[in-house]
Every structure is written in structure tokens, then in C-alpha cells.
């Protein structure tokens, strides 16, 4: 008989990440591509007013969804060790993201680089959180 390798909470967490965060993330990338296309083909096209607010809010949805999903997992998981691993991964993701954002923001402030597309900082968070989780799984394999 095949053994279960995770708790029900872990399965729910993985399902939510796969079916909510990943599609949202690809939607946001597609949205950025479309907006970039419109900007390059229709000069001076920039979302403004309410549309700009909506676009900005939509682009932050993957990160908001991932934090909500992590919170649900921490509330539902009964295995303290697995909770600790997730918290460590989140801390690594948040810490590195803040450090990179601060570094890039400072360079921009001092005029060393041109304006950056900082919405993509989400990529850093997801990449570091995933790598950190994989390292923890390897460490405690």
C-alpha cells in the first residue's frame, strides 16, 4: 500500500498554490505583456485613474494570494515541523525580496539605473521561497 507523504493540510496548500497562485501569476505576466504591447504600439498609452488602480491591484494579487494561502496552511497544519519549514521559507522569501527591492530602489534613487519594473520583484519572492523549501526538504530528507 502506498504511504501518504503529506498531511491533508499540505495537499490543500499545494492544490491552492497550483490552482490559484500559479494561474494568477501567469495572468499577471500576460497582462504586463499586453500593456507593454499597447504602450509600444499606441504611444502614450498608460492606464490612468481607476484603471491604473485596478491594474496595480491585479498585479499584486499573486503575492497577496500566496500569503493568504500560507496563512491558511499554518492554521490548518498540525505538524509543527512542517509549519516551521514554511515559516523559514517565507522569511527567506520576504527578507531577500525586501533586500533586493531596497537595493534596487537605492540605485534608482541615486540615478545609477533607469526606472525599474519593480512589479516583477514578486519573482524574487517566489524563487527564493521555493529554493528555500527545497533546501529544507533536502536537509531533513
Amino acid at each position, binding site marked *: 500500500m502506498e*504511504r501518504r507523504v*503529506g498531511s491533508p493540510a499540505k495537499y490543500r496548500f499545494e492544490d491552492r498554490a497550483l490552482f490559484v497562485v500559479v494561474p494568477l501569476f501567469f495572468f499577471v505576466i500576460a497582462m504586463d505583456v499586453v500593456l507593454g504591447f499597447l504602450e509600444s504600439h499606441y504611444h502614450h498609452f498608460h492606464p490612468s485613474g481607476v484603471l491604473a488602480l485596478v491594474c496595480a491591484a491585479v498585479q499584486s494579487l499573486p503575492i497577496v494570494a500566496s500569503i493568504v494561502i500560507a496563512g491558511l496552511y499554518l492554521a490548518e497544519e*498540525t*505538524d509543527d*515541523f512542517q509549519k516551521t*519549514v514554511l515559516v523559514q521559507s517565507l522569511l527567506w522569501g520576504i527578507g531577500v525580496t525586501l533586500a533586493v527591492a531596497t537595493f534596487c530602489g537605492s540605485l534608482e534613487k541615486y540615478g545609477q539605473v533607469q526606472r525599474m519594473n519593480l512589479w516583477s520583484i514578486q519573482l524574487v519572492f517566489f524563487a527564493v521561497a521555493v529554493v528555500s523549501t527545497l533546501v529544507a526538504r533536502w536537509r531533513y530528507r
Partner: protein
Amino acid sequence: MKNRLRVLRAEREWSQADLAEKLEVSRQSVNAIETGKFDPSLPLAFKLARLFETTIEAIFSDEP
């Protein structure tokens, strides 16, 4: 924190996966506790003590 988990488990010829299943935690949790990388919560320590029919002090020791 030191513990006798590996010895107790070996006496019963249980694998880490067997113990994890009985405790309803992941195998990685058992491994982390056995190797001293993670200290279990009090409820889990009680669960271990009940499972091995002994006391928490007989399993875990805070001596260096």
C-alpha cells in the same frame, strides 16, 4: 536536546515512516526530531511517550 527516539524505534523495528504514520506527522519531522535538529511540541512529546509506553523524561534529555 538529546533523545532516545532512534533506539526506541529500533527496538520495535519501526522505520521512520512507520513512526511518522503512528504519530500522524511527516517522516521528515521524525528525522528532524531524531537528529536533534527540531524539538517536538509538548503535545507531540506526550504522544511519543504514550506510544513508547514511557515518560517524556525517558525519551528526551536536556543534558548537553
